[in-house]
């Protein structure tokens, strides 16, 4: 009766020995999370600053210079070029030297005087002159994030031009920002990185696990032994569960040190949730491994899973912004559920009970994956 257990432990021990000697793989286990965390933690930033822009100033007045300075002071844009006319400006956009052009017309002073934004009293709304904006932005609208950053300048108050205190107006809505009041992107990115890195390493390791035995010629011997497919599968994934947990500790720990990532008190929930995700990813990798005929194919399949995990899971772009069908597809990937979970645990102090749907789904995915992998693994050569 102890045979299945001792066989699983034999496979586990064998995998561990092989892994220990594979210096490159072992190094990647540590280096992948380390490098990616530092790289992405610092690099990915969705609050855009210092967009390079050109200025075409037909007004050439003190007022126009102050207005340009005010725009630059927002830090949204940075004036890198001064051009004479709109044609030159369009060429600059086409050549990607600048992302937008700030065009100041020659009647700037009159426009400012009549603009309600300047706060010089409200002229009658029927006066057509008042509906004219003071200047124009010509934007390379292909990147929607850049475009909306510049659009945010649309209603910039001009009261400062008259040495009046800005922001006197009362906003229509009060917005209270929970969990990430400083709006730092890293706070959102770092926990998400756990999901991405685990998806990558877990699926990559296990997708090679079975096919490697085949490629190295060990399979014929292995299937001639009494080992059962499910024992083989379980024995093969155990080492990677530990690796996954180590990677999680590295990312969250380093995230805490480097990016002041806060920690909720839900360590146990986090542990269980991560375990579920690791299990789901590993079983997915095993299924891929039973399909792939070579390690190269296994790697290609890993990428096939990895890309949607990055792009559809809510790691980069909000899940809610996707069309409904894409949301259904995203639901199929364990990463989507984990993204929701880990951000919940780490940032919102949520508990496993709050996110039980995602937990159940990942558990189901794990069990199904193991069954499919064991079922697909044939102890036959035909």
């Amino acid at each position, binding site marked *: 009766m102890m*045979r299945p257990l001792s*066989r699983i432990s034999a496979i586990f021990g064998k995998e561990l020995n*092989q892994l220990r000697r594979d210096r490159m793989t072992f190094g990647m286990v540590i280096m992948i999370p380390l490098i990616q965390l530092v790289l992405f933690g610092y690099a990915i930033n969705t609050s855009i600053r210092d967009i390079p822009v050109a200025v075409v100033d037909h007004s050439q007045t003190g007022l126009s210079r102050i207005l340009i300075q005010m725009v630059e002071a927002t830090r949204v844009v940075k004036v890198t070029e001064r051009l004479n006319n709109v044609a030159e400006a369009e060429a600059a956009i086409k050549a990607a030297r600048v992302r937008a052009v700030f065009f100041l017309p020659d009647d700037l002073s009159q426009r400012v005087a009549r603009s309600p934004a300047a706060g010089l009293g409200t002229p009658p709304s029927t006066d057509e002159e008042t509906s004219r904006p003071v200047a124009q932005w010509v934007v390379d609208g292909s990147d929607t994030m850049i475009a909306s950053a510049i659009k945010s300048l649309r209603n910039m108050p001009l009261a400062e031009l008259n040495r009046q205190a800005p922001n006197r107006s009362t906003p229509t809505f009060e917005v209270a920002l929970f969990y990430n009041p400083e709006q730092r992107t890293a706070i959102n990115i770092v926990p998400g990185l756990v999901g991405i890195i685990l998806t990558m390493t877990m699926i990559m390791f296990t997708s090679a696990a079975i096919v490697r035995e085949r490629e190295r010629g060990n399979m014929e*011997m292995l299937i001639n*032994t009494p080992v059962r497919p499910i024992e083989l599968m379980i024995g093969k994934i155990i080492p990677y569960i530990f690796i996954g947990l180590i990677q999680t500790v590295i990312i969250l720990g380093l995230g805490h040190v480097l990016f002041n990532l806060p920690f909720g008190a839900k360590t146990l929930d986090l542990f269980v949730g991560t375990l579920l995700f690791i299990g789901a990813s590993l079983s997915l990798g095993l299924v891929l491994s039973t399909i792939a005929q070579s390690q190269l194919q296994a790697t290609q399949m890993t990428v096939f899973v990895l890309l949607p995990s990055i792009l559809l899971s809510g790691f980069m772009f909000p899940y809610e912004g996707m069309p409904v069908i894409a949301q259904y597809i995203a639901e199929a990937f364990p990463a989507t559920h984990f993204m929701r979970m880990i951000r919940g645990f780490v940032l919102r102090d949520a508990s496993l009970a709050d996110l039980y749907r995602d937990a159940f789904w990942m558990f189901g995915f794990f069990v199904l994956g193991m069954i499919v992998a064991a079922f697909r693994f044939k102890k*036959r050569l035909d």
Partner: protein
Amino acid sequence: MSETDIVIRAEGLVKSFKGFRAVDGLDLTIERGMIYGFLGPNGCGKTTAMRMLTGLLTPTEGTVEVLGLSVPKDAETLKYKIGYMTQTFSLYGDLTVRENLNFMATIYGLTGKKRSQRLAEVMDCYALSDLGERFAGKMSGGQRQRLALATAVLHEPQLLFLDEPTSAVDPESRRHFWEQLFDLVEGGTSIVVTTHFMDEAERCHKIAIMEAGQKRADGRPKDLMAAMGANVVEIEGPNLRDIRRRLLGSDGIMAAAQLGARLRVLVRQEIPDPETFLKEKPETHGATLIEKVRPNLEDVFVTATGEGRQ
């Protein structure tokens, strides 16, 4: 012969791969306590046949019974009772000898003291005691082969399958290897081996000569040689290549092949005095010596297969 003395019984075994019949109607009866060899060129279906016997391949047609178990239905039960040595080295090159043996022993359900005892036993028996910490991938062909055999017999199987076990091994190791096989047979193990070496086949108790997925002949090597449908005559002299060319296709000649300074000619059995027959043939003009010799297994192989069979 009682039923329990039969370890393998196969009837009408066929294996097709997309229309190609790799094994084509094979009948086998293999008795306990002997070394049974499949002799044949590469691609003749030896390995495919062996894989069907171990349950690795499902036969397209036919029935297989190994150690009283129906294969492939009871293949998993059978796996505890048989050992298998693959054609190419299939243990883990990045594990040490001891780790490999330990792994396989545990897979076969050996644990604790029993396992370490058995490990010491086979390591001693197959001269692996000093190689325990060596990586399997860094060993010589002969050492690997000993490890593979040690692994195959770890769980003391009743029946051992060896797929071209000596193809990557020097002659010295090969001879030693066969001594070990006879030791195993003495201990009660039955062995099935595939080979394309004549000298190796000659050591088997019984052989089956395979060609194009079919069994051409089977029996004891000695009986096969005696029952061969040809006499063997060797010719010496200059221009042996010319003589050979002239003889091939000539009446009464089954085959002719040069062996160093001699031409080995197979003459049909029906011809009563093959020496005189050849001497009188104009094709052998220029030969200095023509004498009848003892047949060997290669002659049997040639008469049973290919051009000799016709």
